[in-house]
C-alpha cells in the first residue's frame, strides 16, 4: 500500500481561520449593538448570526462535501421554516383590535 501523506485532505489552517472569523463576527455584533452604530442594529445582529451559521455549516459540518441531495434537503427545511414565519407574520402584522401586534 502506498504511503499516504499526513493529514490528507485537511488543513488545520482552514478550521482555525473559520473559528477566528466566527469570533471576529461575534465581536462585530456586540460592537454594533453596544455602540448603537445603526438603527437597524437588530437586523445586522441577525444577519451576522446567519453568516456565522453559514461558516459552521459549510466548514465544520462539511456541507460542501455532502451529496447534492443533502444540500437540497437542508434548503427545503430552511424554506419550510421561512414559510412558517412568513405566513405567521402575514397574519399577526395585519390584525386589528386587542390581538393587534
Amino acid at each position, binding site marked *: 500500500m502506498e504511503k499516504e501523506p499526513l493529514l490528507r485532505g485537511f488543513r488545520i489552517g482552514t478550521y482555525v481561520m473559520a473559528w477566528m472569523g466566527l469570533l471576529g463576527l*461575534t465581536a462585530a*455584533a456586540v460592537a454594533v449593538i453596544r455602540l448603537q452604530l445603526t438603527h437597524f442594529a437588530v437586523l445586522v445582529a441577525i444577519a451576522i448570526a446567519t453568516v456565522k451559521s453559514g461558516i459552521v455549516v459549510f466548514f465544520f459540518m462539511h456541507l460542501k462535501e455532502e451529496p447534492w441531495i443533502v444540500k437540497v434537503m437542508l434548503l427545503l427545511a430552511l424554506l419550510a421554516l421561512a414559510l412558517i414565519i412568513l405566513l405567521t407574520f402575514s397574519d399577526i402584522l395585519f390584525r386589528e383590535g386587542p390581538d393587534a401586534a
Partner: protein
Amino acid sequence: MTQQDNIREASQRMHASGNMGVSHRLDYTGSKMGMWIFLFTEIIFFGGLFLVYSVYRTKYALEFRSGAAELSLWMGAANTTVLLTSSLTMALSIAFLKNGRKGLSLVNQGMTVFLGALFLIIKYLEWHAHIEQGLYPDSPGLSSMNRGEIIFFSLYYVMTGLHGLHVFIGVGLVSGLLALTARGAIHPQDFIKLENGGLYWHLVDIIWIYLFPLFYLIT
C-alpha cells in the same frame, strides 16, 4: 482519497474476509443522511420557539428591551466564545482521527467535553444570579412585572433551558464517543459515529449563535 473511498475500502476489506455481518455493514451516506434528517427536525423544533419569540417581540418591543437589560451581555458573549471554540475542537478531532492521529483526536474530543461543561457552568451561574434576584417562572418578583417582561423571561428560560439540555446531552454523547475512540471502536476506517456526533454538536452551536443576539443583543 475522500471519506467515502475510505469507507468503501474498509467495507471491501470486510467482504473479502467474510466478516460482513449485518451489524458490521457500513453505509456512510445513509448514516449521515439519517443524521441530517434528525437535525432538520431539530431546526423546526427550535424554529417554532424562534417564531413565538419573534411574534411576542413584535408585540412587546419595549418590554423585551427592559427584560434584556437584566441579562449579562458579557456572560452571553463568554458562552458564545466557549461554544464556538468547542465546535473548532470537535471538527479538529474528526480531522485528526481520519488521518490516524488518534491521540490528537482524543485530546480534542476531551477539549470539546470540557468546553461543553464550561458552557453549562456559566449558564448555571447566570440562572443562579437571576433566581437570587427573584426572577424565575411564577416568582413574586417576575409576576409583579408587566406582561411583556414575563413573556420575555419565560421564553428566556424555556429556550436557553432547552438549548442547555441539548448541550448536556451533547457532553454525554461526546464523552461516549471519546470512550469508543479510546477503545478503538471508532477508527480511521469507521468514524461515522464521531462525524454524526460532530454534526449534532455543531447544530447545537448554531442554535446558540441565534439565541445570543435574540436575548443578549437587544438595545
